[in-house]
């Protein structure tokens, strides 16, 4: 099995297309960091317009932790599209080239090959996430320094002490890995259905966009199905940055407001991964390889 994974990883990382996502993420992050470095204070002043009517905020609001949060908000919506570029090509790409027949004629079973391909695609996804974390968090901390995390949400503000932030990012990135692996498995399922790369890639991207729109609309009709959509749960990494308060309205350091919500989301995402990968295996096992 390990040798199959190695072969699949070799195939992924020798294709130039693989590095598009790494380059795109680096370019986006550098541009945003540059913009915030040059004109971040006016951006922060705009965000804090309502707060400044009542309070004066003293300290380094625009620090590495806040920059990372802003970057994750912007990028974790779009990174799934970059993941789809590789994941949705894993099986269909081989079918298109006619090499799938060769793979399945080896002594290894189809299930082995499918799992090896999925694990290799998952490694790519995790590496992409680590790259994102390195640039968004550690480079931002290096450029902007660190301080308390002053998060301005739609209806309230959360002030998290500096020493209480880093583990939340670890939690958020672990959560994000589940979100992106769900996309990987969806792309994989789409890939098992087609014999060319374009269809599954566009199909996966369309599904993500479609379900994301359904998840964000507050229309009662969609509210019923929203808890079952993986896109509803993908953004719940933000829950790591909401904090509990006691009866005196004092924030409790080290607490997370809604742990059950995080657990539920992780279960839903995990079930989607299992469902999509299992469906892929079933489809491939029954597939008549004609190309």
């Amino acid at each position: 099995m390990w040798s199959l994974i190695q072969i699949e990883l070799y195939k992924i990382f020798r294709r130039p297309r693989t590095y598009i996502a790494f380059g795109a993420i680096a370019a986006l992050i550098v541009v945003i960091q540059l913009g915030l470095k040059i004109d971040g204070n006016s951006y922060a002043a705009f965000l804090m317009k309502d707060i400044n009517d009542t309070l004066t905020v003293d300290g380094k609001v625009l620090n590495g932790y806040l920059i990372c949060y802003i970057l994750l908000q912007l990028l974790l919506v779009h990174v799934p599209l970059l993941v789809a570029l590789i994941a949705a090509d894993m099986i269909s790409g081989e079918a298109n080239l006619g090499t799938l027949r060769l793979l399945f004629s080896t002594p290894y079973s189809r299930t082995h090959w499918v799992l090896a391909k999925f694990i290799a695609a998952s490694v790519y996804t995790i590496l992409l996430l680590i790259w994102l974390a390195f640039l968004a968090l550690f480079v931002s901390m290096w450029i902007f320094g660190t301080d308390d995390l002053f998060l301005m949400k739609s209806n309230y503000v959360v002030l998290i002490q500096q020493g209480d932030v880093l583990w939340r990012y670890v939690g958020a990135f672990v959560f994000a890995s589940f979100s992106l692996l769900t996309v990987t498995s969806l792309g994989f399922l789409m890939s098992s259905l087609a014999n060319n790369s374009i269809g599954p890639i566009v199909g996966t991207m369309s599904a993500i966009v479609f379900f994301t729109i359904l998840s964000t609309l507050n229309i009662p009709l969609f509210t019923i199905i929203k808890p079952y959509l993986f896109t509803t749960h993908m953004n719940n990494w933000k829950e790591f940055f909401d904090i509990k308060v006691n009866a005196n309205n004092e924030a409790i350091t080290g607490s997370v407001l809604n742990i059950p919500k995080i657990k539920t989301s992780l279960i839903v995402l995990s079930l989607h991964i299992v469902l999509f990968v299992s469906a892929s295996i079933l489809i491939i096992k029954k597939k008549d390889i004609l190309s």
Partner: protein
Amino acid sequence: MLTMKKYTIVFIACSLFSLIISPKAHAQTNPLIEKVAQKLALVNDYVAEGVMKTDVSFIKASLGKVKVYFKKPNLLKVKKEGGISLLPRGGVSLTINTLLNTKQYTTIPAGTQVLNGKNLTVIKLIPTDENLDWVISTLWIDPVEALVYKTATTTKENGSYEILMQYGEYAKFGLASKIVFSFNTKDYKLPNGITLEFGDEDPAVKQKLLKNKKGTIEINYNNYLINKGVPNSIF
């Protein structure tokens, strides 16, 4: 000629009347305020360490260690140690030291009131310098200890503030061991397009929880360094 004389008499009479009701003359004659001011005059500067609690309906913040710097006549700075601090806009500098040290006010006695079991004398201060930020301030003073236990101040631009004080070992200098600033807060709302919080399932419920318009900042002091010198660069 007669008319001129009449005008002169009226002018002198008006001048005498304005002298009688002169605010400065009245301020100088209020013995309790003088007693409080004398106590506060013992302090040229201080650095105080304390713990600050921010209680505003739309803010979730934990307790933070702060240092409070004061220098005569009215320089005051609250700094959180290694972190972001949130303070009421303009109000935190309106402590009793900064109010009385200006000496630019007139006093109006407003009776007595019982506050937390103490019989306190109520005195209203009205600034005589129109450039000062505050419009009126009411002081609740213990006439025996010459300590101010409560102030309510209305400012020109930053709304109204109420400050409650408790005293401990530094009472002889008129310095509080605990201060609670109360102030009115305005609405806080950022569009979802800016915060990217789309699909929030209960925005109305969250908004309902934030209807309390009163905010407080509480500082519990645990140490004062008095008259050791504070550089101007801090402020």
